[in-house]
């Protein structure tokens, strides 16, 4: 009986998830979850965001048309709710990225591979953020300090590297689920690979699975 219950519900969920995975809303939700749970900035989902934008715009026009054509207010309000939900997801996704960018702007900007993960507007944003932050620090504090201590990125002139740049903590653990029915991950320290079914949640070292995010696993 318990088995019936378990199999029935997971099988049903699998079907449902594979069905729903085709919509961009579902993809956006996954992207948002991944972005939110990952300590560092992930690759910007150019195509997905573009498609979501187009669909949202199209739906905005449709809803407007519905309203003008005197369509049943209930139906219009339902369409509006769907639109609001999609917009909320898109905004949350963009917003969580902005938060990360603001927090780690110096770190992201100096690292080519990280910088390439940004969208063009995000690059402009970070550049301007950095300029503003530097100007602000310059004017309020740094200009009043002795010459050796005027860097925005280094404690003093004798520092060998940028030791005042906030960096994301990559030695952290994240919770993830398999994005397929089954996934086998080779972890460095154990001889046995970590095997995950759909219903398994694992807390794994971020560094070990970061390349698998969006491919084999999704963060939760």
């Amino acid at each position, binding site marked *: 009986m318990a088995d019936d*219950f378990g199999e029935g519900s997971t099988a049903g969920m699998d079907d449902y998830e594979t069905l729903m995975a085709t919509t961009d809303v579902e993809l956006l939700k996954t992207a948002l979850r991944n972005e939110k749970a990952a300590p560092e900035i992930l690759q910007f989902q150019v195509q997905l965001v573009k498609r979501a934008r187009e669909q949202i715009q199209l739906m905005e026009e449709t809803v407007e048309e519905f309203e003008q054509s005197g369509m049943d207010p209930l139906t219009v309000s339902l369409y509006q709710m769907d639109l609001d939900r999609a917009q909320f997801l898109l905004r949350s996704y963009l917003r969580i990225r902005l938060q990360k960018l603001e927090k780690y702007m110096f770190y992201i900007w100096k690292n080519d591979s990280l910088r390439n993960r940004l969208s063009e507007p995000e690059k402009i944003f970070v550049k301007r953020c950095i300029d503003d932050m530097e100007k602000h620090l310059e004017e309020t504090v740094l200009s009043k300090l002795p010459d050796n201590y005027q860097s925005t990125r280094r404690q003093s002139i004798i520092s060998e590297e940028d030791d005042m740049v906030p960096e994301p903590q990559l030695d952290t653990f994240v919770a993830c689920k398999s994005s397929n029915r089954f996934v086998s991950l080779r972890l460095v320290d154990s001889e046995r690979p970590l095997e995950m079914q759909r219903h398994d949640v694992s807390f794994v070292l971020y560094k070990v699975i970061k390349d698998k995010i969006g491919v084999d696993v999704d963060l939760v």
Partner: protein
Amino acid sequence: MFSATRANLENDNRTFLLSVFTGIISRHQRHKIGFHSLKLTSNHSKSCKNKTKSLFSFRSLSLSEMAGQSDPHISLFSPQEIEFMAEDELVEIVPNIRMDPLNFISGDFGPFFPQIPAKVPLWLAVALKKRGKCTIRPPQWMSIENLTHVLEGEREDQGAFQAVPFHYIEISRLLFDHARDDIPDIYMVRSLIEDIRDVRLHKVETNLEKFSATSAVKISHLSAMEVNVVRPFVVRSLQAFYKHDNPVVMADLDSASDRQPQVRQPQVPRNAQRQPLKRR
């Protein structure tokens, strides 16, 4: 008045020492203790309570408290956000109106005919229900029979979790809030789900005590809300283990590209300790 203030200060100091010792009480709590209570004994019991509470903040909690961790940055997702995610789960409704198909961004649903069941996302079901346009059919797993079975299973097997939907807490809560008249024996169902939740959380908690250094912890059938609740504790303890095992790596934080730090870990048989939470 003066003496009271002094007692306050003294207490504050002592609680401070105590809290440094236990390293648990937050500054805010210290502040509160110092100002609101005068007896050291009560401070003692209070701080001890606080200690257990903050360590295992998921012990017998209401839904709203459950994911409402003290630090929003650590709990990651707010309960509302998780609920939002759960609202896309499909449920079956029985509409009492006729409506054309809805071609949403999130998928196509309908057409709807009176008394003909249809599958829609939970948010749509709730919206229609609120307007009195449908009844919601509670999902199969919410039957008393199934829930009783799950609860029994949870109690019997302390090492593993029963299969429940990933969003069982959110779904049941939404249905309790908005479709109470559609759930037969709602009180029974509700108390069963609450019991299941409590047993499961207690189980996570006791299993966390057996935690040890490892690079991965797998927990089968952990639900979305439960992940969010245990995350702060699990992540921080795993991090601490990792830090102690890899002093070299920690000193070298910049090497984000260094993909084999764990090779330097002492090879302790860890699989044995990973067992308790694994599904057998």
